[in-house]
Protein backbone atom coordinates (compact mmCIF):
# COMPACT_ATOMS: atom_id res chain seq x y z
CA UNK A 1 0.00 0.00 0.00
CA UNK A 2 1.00 3.54 -0.81
CA UNK A 3 2.16 5.57 2.18
CA UNK A 4 3.15 9.04 3.29
CA UNK A 5 6.12 9.25 5.64
CA UNK A 6 6.67 12.32 7.73
CA UNK A 7 10.13 12.67 9.21
CA UNK A 8 10.97 15.02 12.10
CA UNK A 9 8.89 17.85 10.71
CA UNK A 10 9.46 21.18 12.46
CA UNK A 11 7.86 24.55 11.78
CA UNK A 12 8.60 27.72 13.74
CA UNK A 13 6.78 31.03 13.60
CA UNK A 14 8.89 33.83 15.09
CA UNK A 15 8.83 32.77 18.74
CA UNK A 16 6.36 29.91 18.64
CA UNK A 17 7.25 26.37 17.56
CA UNK A 18 4.05 25.26 15.83
CA UNK A 19 5.32 21.78 15.06
CA UNK A 20 8.20 20.18 16.90
CA UNK A 21 9.96 17.18 15.31
CA UNK A 22 6.84 15.23 14.37
CA UNK A 23 7.33 11.85 12.66
CA UNK A 24 4.48 9.60 11.60
CA UNK A 25 3.30 7.51 8.70
CA UNK A 26 -0.03 7.39 6.90
CA UNK A 27 -1.08 4.38 4.87
CA UNK A 28 -3.73 4.07 2.20
CA UNK A 29 -6.71 2.02 3.36
CA UNK A 30 -6.90 3.57 6.84
CA UNK A 31 -8.96 6.31 8.46
CA UNK A 32 -7.02 8.35 11.00
CA UNK A 33 -8.16 10.76 13.66
CA UNK A 34 -5.87 13.76 14.03
CA UNK A 35 -6.73 15.14 17.42
CA UNK A 36 -5.57 17.90 19.70
CA UNK A 37 -6.64 21.20 21.17
CA UNK A 38 -6.84 24.49 19.34
CA UNK A 39 -3.34 25.62 18.43
CA UNK A 40 -1.79 22.18 18.99
CA UNK A 41 -0.35 22.12 15.44
CA UNK A 42 -2.95 20.08 13.53
CA UNK A 43 -3.53 22.63 10.79
CA UNK A 44 0.18 23.41 10.53
CA UNK A 45 0.87 19.71 10.00
CA UNK A 46 -1.78 19.46 7.29
CA UNK A 47 -0.59 22.65 5.58
CA UNK A 48 2.98 21.29 5.53
CA UNK A 49 1.90 17.97 4.04
CA UNK A 50 -0.13 19.75 1.38
CA UNK A 51 2.80 21.99 0.47
CA UNK A 52 0.92 25.15 1.40
CA UNK A 53 3.75 26.17 3.72
CA UNK A 54 7.34 24.96 4.03
CA UNK A 55 8.97 23.31 7.05
CA UNK A 56 12.07 24.61 8.81
CA UNK A 57 13.36 21.06 8.90
CA UNK A 58 12.20 17.54 8.18
CA UNK A 59 10.46 16.21 5.10
CA UNK A 60 7.33 14.60 3.72
CA UNK A 61 7.67 11.70 1.29
CA UNK A 62 5.16 9.62 -0.63
CA UNK A 63 6.41 6.11 -1.35
CA UNK A 64 9.96 7.36 -0.85
CA UNK A 65 9.78 10.47 -3.06
CA UNK A 66 9.84 14.00 -1.67
CA UNK A 67 6.41 15.58 -1.99
CA UNK A 68 7.46 19.23 -1.83
CA UNK A 69 7.04 21.00 -5.21
CA UNK A 70 6.29 17.68 -6.95
CA UNK A 71 2.92 18.25 -8.66
CA UNK A 72 2.56 14.60 -9.61
CA UNK A 73 2.64 13.63 -5.93
CA UNK A 74 0.73 16.66 -4.67
CA UNK A 75 -2.19 15.61 -6.90
CA UNK A 76 -2.49 12.46 -4.79
CA UNK A 77 -2.86 14.51 -1.63
CA UNK A 78 -5.86 16.69 -0.90
CA UNK A 79 -5.96 19.00 2.08
CA UNK A 80 -9.29 20.51 2.97
CA UNK A 81 -8.60 23.57 5.06
CA UNK A 82 -10.84 24.75 7.88
CA UNK A 83 -10.51 28.22 6.37
CA UNK A 84 -12.41 29.38 3.30
CA UNK A 85 -9.76 29.69 0.58
CA UNK A 86 -12.01 29.93 -2.49
CA UNK A 87 -13.24 33.32 -3.76
CA UNK A 88 -16.68 34.02 -2.33
CA UNK A 89 -18.24 35.06 -5.66
CA UNK A 90 -17.39 31.69 -7.22
CA UNK A 91 -20.25 29.37 -8.11
CA UNK A 92 -20.19 25.87 -6.62
CA UNK A 93 -20.06 24.18 -10.02
CA UNK A 94 -17.21 26.46 -11.12
CA UNK A 95 -15.29 25.53 -7.99
CA UNK A 96 -15.57 21.89 -9.06
CA UNK A 97 -14.36 22.79 -12.58
CA UNK A 98 -11.49 24.89 -11.22
CA UNK A 99 -10.37 22.04 -9.02
CA UNK A 100 -10.23 19.72 -12.05
CA UNK A 101 -7.38 21.82 -13.49
CA UNK A 102 -5.03 20.60 -10.80
CA UNK A 103 -6.76 17.45 -9.53
CA UNK A 104 -7.20 15.92 -12.96
CA UNK A 105 -9.05 12.88 -11.59
CA UNK A 106 -11.79 15.11 -10.16
CA UNK A 107 -15.13 13.40 -10.71
CA UNK A 108 -17.58 16.19 -11.56
CA UNK A 109 -20.62 13.90 -11.70
CA UNK A 110 -19.84 12.57 -8.25
CA UNK A 111 -19.42 16.13 -6.93
CA UNK A 112 -22.82 17.12 -8.36
CA UNK A 113 -24.42 13.97 -6.96
CA UNK A 114 -23.08 14.89 -3.51
CA UNK A 115 -24.41 18.45 -3.91
CA UNK A 116 -27.79 16.92 -4.64
CA UNK A 117 -27.62 14.61 -1.59
CA UNK A 118 -26.82 17.57 0.67
CA UNK A 119 -29.36 19.87 -0.98
CA UNK A 120 -26.82 22.36 -2.31
CA UNK A 121 -27.65 24.16 -5.56
CA UNK A 122 -24.43 24.03 -7.65
CA UNK A 123 -25.45 27.22 -9.47
CA UNK A 124 -25.28 29.25 -6.25
CA UNK A 125 -22.30 31.36 -5.35
CA UNK A 126 -20.33 30.41 -2.23
CA UNK A 127 -21.34 33.75 -0.68
CA UNK A 128 -25.01 32.73 -0.97
CA UNK A 129 -24.50 29.57 1.10
CA UNK A 130 -24.78 29.16 4.86
CA UNK A 131 -21.67 28.44 6.97
CA UNK A 132 -22.57 24.75 7.14
CA UNK A 133 -23.16 24.54 3.39
CA UNK A 134 -19.80 26.19 2.67
CA UNK A 135 -18.12 23.54 4.82
CA UNK A 136 -20.07 20.85 2.97
CA UNK A 137 -18.90 22.21 -0.39
CA UNK A 138 -15.29 21.97 0.79
CA UNK A 139 -15.81 18.35 1.85
CA UNK A 140 -17.57 17.57 -1.45
CA UNK A 141 -14.57 18.98 -3.33
CA UNK A 142 -12.24 16.83 -1.22
CA UNK A 143 -14.28 13.64 -1.72
CA UNK A 144 -14.54 14.15 -5.48
CA UNK A 145 -10.87 15.13 -5.97
CA UNK A 146 -9.72 11.61 -6.84
CA UNK A 147 -6.84 11.97 -4.36
CA UNK A 148 -5.46 8.97 -2.47
CA UNK A 149 -4.75 10.87 0.75
CA UNK A 150 -7.51 13.14 1.93
CA UNK A 151 -7.03 15.47 4.90
CA UNK A 152 -10.19 16.97 6.33
CA UNK A 153 -9.70 19.78 8.82
CA UNK A 154 -12.90 20.25 10.84
CA UNK A 155 -15.21 18.79 8.16
CA UNK A 156 -18.34 19.13 10.30
CA UNK A 157 -18.00 22.77 11.33
CA UNK A 158 -21.42 24.39 11.52
CA UNK A 159 -23.18 21.38 10.00
CA UNK A 160 -26.45 20.16 11.49
CA UNK A 161 -26.74 16.64 12.92
CA UNK A 162 -28.64 15.17 9.95
CA UNK A 163 -26.05 16.35 7.48
CA UNK A 164 -23.20 15.24 9.73
CA UNK A 165 -24.66 11.74 9.84
CA UNK A 166 -24.93 11.71 6.04
CA UNK A 167 -21.44 13.11 5.72
CA UNK A 168 -19.93 10.29 7.81
CA UNK A 169 -21.78 7.85 5.58
CA UNK A 170 -20.39 9.45 2.42
CA UNK A 171 -16.86 9.42 3.84
CA UNK A 172 -17.16 5.70 4.64
CA UNK A 173 -18.54 4.94 1.18
CA UNK A 174 -15.75 6.85 -0.55
CA UNK A 175 -13.22 5.13 1.70
CA UNK A 176 -14.70 1.69 1.05
CA UNK A 177 -14.72 2.19 -2.73
CA UNK A 178 -11.26 3.65 -3.20
CA UNK A 179 -9.33 2.81 -0.03
CA UNK A 180 -8.12 6.39 0.05
CA UNK A 181 -6.54 7.30 3.36
CA UNK A 182 -8.58 9.79 5.37
CA UNK A 183 -7.02 11.93 8.05
CA UNK A 184 -9.72 13.79 9.91
CA UNK A 185 -9.25 16.43 12.54
CA UNK A 186 -12.29 17.26 14.60
CA UNK A 187 -13.41 18.44 18.01
CA UNK A 188 -16.54 16.24 17.93
CA UNK A 189 -14.51 13.27 18.99
CA UNK A 190 -17.01 10.76 20.37
CA UNK A 191 -19.21 11.30 17.36
CA UNK A 192 -16.41 10.44 14.93
CA UNK A 193 -14.84 7.69 17.03
CA UNK A 194 -16.48 4.96 14.94
CA UNK A 195 -14.78 6.18 11.78
CA UNK A 196 -11.25 6.00 13.09
CA UNK A 197 -8.91 3.07 13.18
CA UNK A 198 -5.86 4.94 14.40
CA UNK A 199 -5.19 8.15 16.27
CA UNK A 200 -2.57 10.84 16.22
CA UNK A 201 -2.74 13.24 19.12
CA UNK A 202 -0.84 16.52 19.04
CA UNK A 203 -0.10 18.64 22.07
CA UNK A 204 1.83 21.91 21.75
CA UNK A 205 3.35 20.84 18.45
CA UNK A 206 4.48 17.43 19.69
CA UNK A 207 3.02 14.05 18.81
CA UNK A 208 1.93 12.56 22.15
CA UNK A 209 -0.01 9.53 20.86
CA UNK A 210 0.24 7.38 17.73
CA UNK A 211 -1.94 4.35 18.49
CA UNK A 212 -4.77 2.15 17.25
CA UNK A 213 -8.05 3.23 18.84
CA UNK A 214 -8.66 0.13 20.89
CA UNK A 215 -5.19 0.25 22.42
CA UNK A 216 -5.55 3.88 23.33
CA UNK A 217 -8.83 3.40 25.19
CA UNK A 218 -8.15 -0.08 26.61
CA UNK A 219 -5.03 1.16 28.41
CA UNK A 220 -6.83 4.00 30.10
CA UNK A 221 -9.04 3.81 33.17
CA UNK A 222 -11.26 6.02 35.26
CA UNK A 223 -10.86 5.46 39.00
CA UNK A 224 -13.47 6.94 41.28
CA UNK A 225 -13.82 6.98 45.03
CA UNK A 226 -12.99 8.89 48.19
CA UNK A 227 -10.30 11.46 47.40
CA UNK A 228 -7.85 10.06 49.97
CA UNK A 229 -8.37 6.47 48.78
CA UNK A 230 -7.88 7.46 45.14
CA UNK A 231 -4.77 9.48 45.97
CA UNK A 232 -3.35 6.56 47.95
CA UNK A 233 -4.05 4.13 45.10
CA UNK A 234 -2.52 6.46 42.50
CA UNK A 235 0.84 6.80 44.31
CA UNK A 236 2.83 4.73 41.80
CA UNK A 237 0.58 5.26 38.76
CA UNK A 238 0.60 7.63 35.84
CA UNK A 239 -2.32 9.95 36.49
CA UNK A 240 -3.44 12.02 33.51
CA UNK A 241 -6.09 14.07 35.21
CA UNK A 242 -7.63 14.27 38.63
CA UNK A 243 -10.94 15.91 39.35
CA UNK A 244 -11.85 16.55 42.97
CA UNK A 245 -15.57 16.75 43.68
CA UNK A 246 -15.91 17.69 47.36
CA UNK A 247 -14.57 14.71 49.28
CA UNK A 248 -14.67 12.58 46.13
CA UNK A 249 -12.21 12.15 43.33
CA UNK A 250 -12.29 10.91 39.76
CA UNK A 251 -8.95 10.16 38.14
CA UNK A 252 -8.00 9.16 34.62
CA UNK A 253 -4.93 6.90 34.56
CA UNK A 254 -2.86 5.16 31.92
CA UNK A 255 -1.36 1.71 32.20
CA UNK A 256 -2.33 -1.47 33.97
CA UNK A 257 -4.85 -1.26 36.78
CA UNK A 258 -5.00 -4.14 39.27
CA UNK A 259 -5.52 -4.94 42.94
CA UNK A 260 -8.08 -2.18 43.19
CA UNK A 261 -9.19 -1.89 46.82
CA UNK A 262 -12.87 -2.03 47.82
CA UNK A 263 -14.61 1.29 47.65
CA UNK A 264 -13.00 2.34 44.37
CA UNK A 265 -14.92 2.10 41.11
CA UNK A 266 -13.11 1.31 37.88
CA UNK A 267 -14.32 1.97 34.33
CA UNK A 268 -12.94 3.11 30.99
CA UNK A 269 -13.10 6.74 29.92
CA UNK A 270 -14.75 7.75 26.65
CA UNK A 271 -12.34 8.90 23.98
CA UNK A 272 -13.40 12.48 24.61
CA UNK A 273 -12.69 12.18 28.34
CA UNK A 274 -9.36 10.51 27.65
CA UNK A 275 -8.33 13.22 25.24
CA UNK A 276 -9.21 15.98 27.67
CA UNK A 277 -7.12 14.15 30.27
CA UNK A 278 -4.17 13.66 27.90
CA UNK A 279 -4.08 17.21 26.59
CA UNK A 280 -5.32 19.04 29.66
CA UNK A 281 -2.12 19.94 31.39
CA UNK A 282 -4.18 21.15 34.34
CA UNK A 283 -4.17 19.08 37.49
CA UNK A 284 -6.46 20.35 40.16
CA UNK A 285 -5.55 17.73 42.75
Amino acid at each position, binding site marked *: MSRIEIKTLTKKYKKKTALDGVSLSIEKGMIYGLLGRNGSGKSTLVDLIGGRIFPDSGEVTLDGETVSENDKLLRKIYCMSAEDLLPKHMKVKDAVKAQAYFYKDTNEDYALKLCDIFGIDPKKRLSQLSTGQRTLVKVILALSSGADFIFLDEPVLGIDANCREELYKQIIERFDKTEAAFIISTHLID*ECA*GLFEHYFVLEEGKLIADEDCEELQANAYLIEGRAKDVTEYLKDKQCLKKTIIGTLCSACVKGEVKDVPDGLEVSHPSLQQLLIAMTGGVQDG
Partner: protein
Amino acid sequence: MGVYYPHFNDTEPLFIQIAQWLENKIVTGQLGEGEQIPSTTELSHSLNINPATVRKGVNILVDKGLVYKKRGMGMFVAENANENVRDDRRVKFYDDFVAPLLNEAERLGITREDIIGMLKGDED
Protein backbone atom coordinates in the same frame (compact mmCIF):
# COMPACT_ATOMS: atom_id res chain seq x y z
CA MET B 1 -21.37 5.39 15.21
CA GLY B 2 -21.93 8.96 14.21
CA VAL B 3 -24.64 11.11 15.65
CA TYR B 4 -27.53 8.78 15.56
CA TYR B 5 -26.92 5.18 16.39
CA PRO B 6 -28.26 4.57 19.89
CA HIS B 7 -27.00 1.07 20.62
CA PHE B 8 -23.37 1.79 21.24
CA ASN B 9 -21.65 3.41 24.18
CA ASP B 10 -18.45 5.47 24.16
CA THR B 11 -16.45 3.47 26.63
CA GLU B 12 -16.30 -0.16 25.46
CA PRO B 13 -14.38 -1.20 22.32
CA LEU B 14 -16.72 -0.82 19.35
CA PHE B 15 -15.89 -4.16 17.73
CA ILE B 16 -17.00 -5.99 20.89
CA GLN B 17 -20.21 -3.98 20.97
CA ILE B 18 -20.88 -4.87 17.33
CA ALA B 19 -20.39 -8.57 18.11
CA GLN B 20 -22.79 -8.30 21.08
CA TRP B 21 -25.34 -6.40 19.04
CA LEU B 22 -25.34 -9.12 16.36
CA GLU B 23 -25.47 -11.83 19.03
CA ASN B 24 -28.60 -10.17 20.42
CA LYS B 25 -30.16 -10.28 16.96
CA ILE B 26 -29.47 -14.02 16.89
CA VAL B 27 -30.72 -14.80 20.39
CA THR B 28 -33.95 -12.83 19.87
CA GLY B 29 -34.55 -14.52 16.52
CA GLN B 30 -34.29 -11.31 14.46
CA LEU B 31 -31.57 -13.17 12.59
CA GLY B 32 -32.67 -16.80 12.23
CA GLU B 33 -30.47 -19.84 11.71
CA GLY B 34 -29.47 -20.22 8.08
CA GLU B 35 -30.36 -16.59 7.39
CA GLN B 36 -27.89 -14.18 5.87
CA ILE B 37 -26.56 -11.47 8.17
CA PRO B 38 -25.93 -7.92 6.87
CA SER B 39 -22.62 -7.64 5.00
CA THR B 40 -19.63 -5.75 6.37
CA THR B 41 -20.37 -3.03 3.82
CA GLU B 42 -24.02 -2.76 4.84
CA LEU B 43 -23.15 -2.66 8.53
CA SER B 44 -20.35 -0.17 8.04
CA HIS B 45 -22.37 2.18 5.80
CA SER B 46 -25.48 2.06 7.96
CA LEU B 47 -23.81 2.35 11.34
CA ASN B 48 -21.11 4.79 10.12
CA ILE B 49 -18.38 2.60 11.54
CA ASN B 50 -15.03 1.87 9.93
CA PRO B 51 -15.26 -1.38 7.87
CA ALA B 52 -12.15 -2.75 9.60
CA THR B 53 -13.82 -2.37 13.00
CA VAL B 54 -17.00 -4.04 11.72
CA ARG B 55 -14.98 -6.93 10.28
CA LYS B 56 -13.26 -7.40 13.62
CA GLY B 57 -16.64 -7.60 15.36
CA VAL B 58 -18.10 -10.06 12.85
CA ASN B 59 -14.95 -12.20 13.15
CA ILE B 60 -15.68 -12.71 16.85
CA LEU B 61 -18.91 -14.45 15.81
CA VAL B 62 -17.07 -16.44 13.14
CA ASP B 63 -14.53 -17.58 15.74
CA LYS B 64 -17.36 -18.62 18.07
CA GLY B 65 -18.90 -20.61 15.22
CA LEU B 66 -22.11 -18.54 15.33
CA VAL B 67 -21.86 -17.36 11.73
CA TYR B 68 -20.05 -18.82 8.76
CA LYS B 69 -18.95 -17.59 5.37
CA LYS B 70 -20.38 -18.94 2.13
CA ARG B 71 -17.88 -18.18 -0.59
CA GLY B 72 -19.06 -15.34 -2.78
CA MET B 73 -22.42 -15.12 -1.02
CA GLY B 74 -21.82 -13.62 2.40
CA MET B 75 -22.20 -14.55 6.05
CA PHE B 76 -24.93 -16.79 7.42
CA VAL B 77 -26.16 -17.69 10.89
CA ALA B 78 -24.93 -21.18 11.78
CA GLU B 79 -27.17 -24.04 12.79
CA ASN B 80 -27.59 -24.13 16.58
CA ALA B 81 -26.27 -20.57 16.82
CA ASN B 82 -29.27 -19.51 18.88
CA GLU B 83 -28.80 -22.40 21.34
CA ASN B 84 -25.06 -21.79 21.49
CA VAL B 85 -25.48 -18.11 22.35
CA ARG B 86 -28.00 -19.08 25.01
CA ASP B 87 -25.64 -21.75 26.44
CA ASP B 88 -22.89 -19.19 26.53
CA ARG B 89 -25.12 -16.70 28.30
CA ARG B 90 -26.41 -19.31 30.75
CA VAL B 91 -22.82 -19.90 31.83
CA LYS B 92 -22.35 -16.18 32.37
CA PHE B 93 -25.80 -15.61 33.87
CA TYR B 94 -24.61 -15.79 37.47
CA ASP B 95 -21.75 -13.33 36.95
CA ASP B 96 -23.69 -10.97 34.72
CA PHE B 97 -27.03 -10.85 36.53
CA VAL B 98 -27.16 -12.74 39.84
CA ALA B 99 -23.92 -11.45 41.34
CA PRO B 100 -24.79 -7.75 40.77
CA LEU B 101 -28.27 -8.42 42.15
CA LEU B 102 -26.84 -10.01 45.30
CA ASN B 103 -24.38 -7.15 45.69
CA GLU B 104 -27.08 -4.52 45.54
CA ALA B 105 -29.30 -6.60 47.86
CA GLU B 106 -26.47 -6.80 50.40
CA ARG B 107 -25.93 -3.04 50.26
CA LEU B 108 -29.64 -2.53 50.92
CA GLY B 109 -29.90 -5.19 53.62
CA ILE B 110 -32.26 -7.39 51.59
CA THR B 111 -31.78 -11.00 52.65
CA ARG B 112 -31.60 -13.97 50.33
CA GLU B 113 -34.92 -15.15 51.81
CA ASP B 114 -36.48 -11.81 50.84
CA ILE B 115 -35.19 -12.29 47.31
CA ILE B 116 -36.52 -15.82 47.11
CA GLY B 117 -39.85 -14.50 48.32
CA MET B 118 -39.85 -11.85 45.59
CA LEU B 119 -39.04 -14.48 42.98
CA LYS B 120 -41.93 -16.62 44.20
CA GLY B 121 -44.16 -13.58 43.81
CA ASP B 122 -45.30 -13.27 47.43
CA GLU B 123 -44.08 -9.69 47.80
CA ASP B 124 -46.75 -7.45 49.30
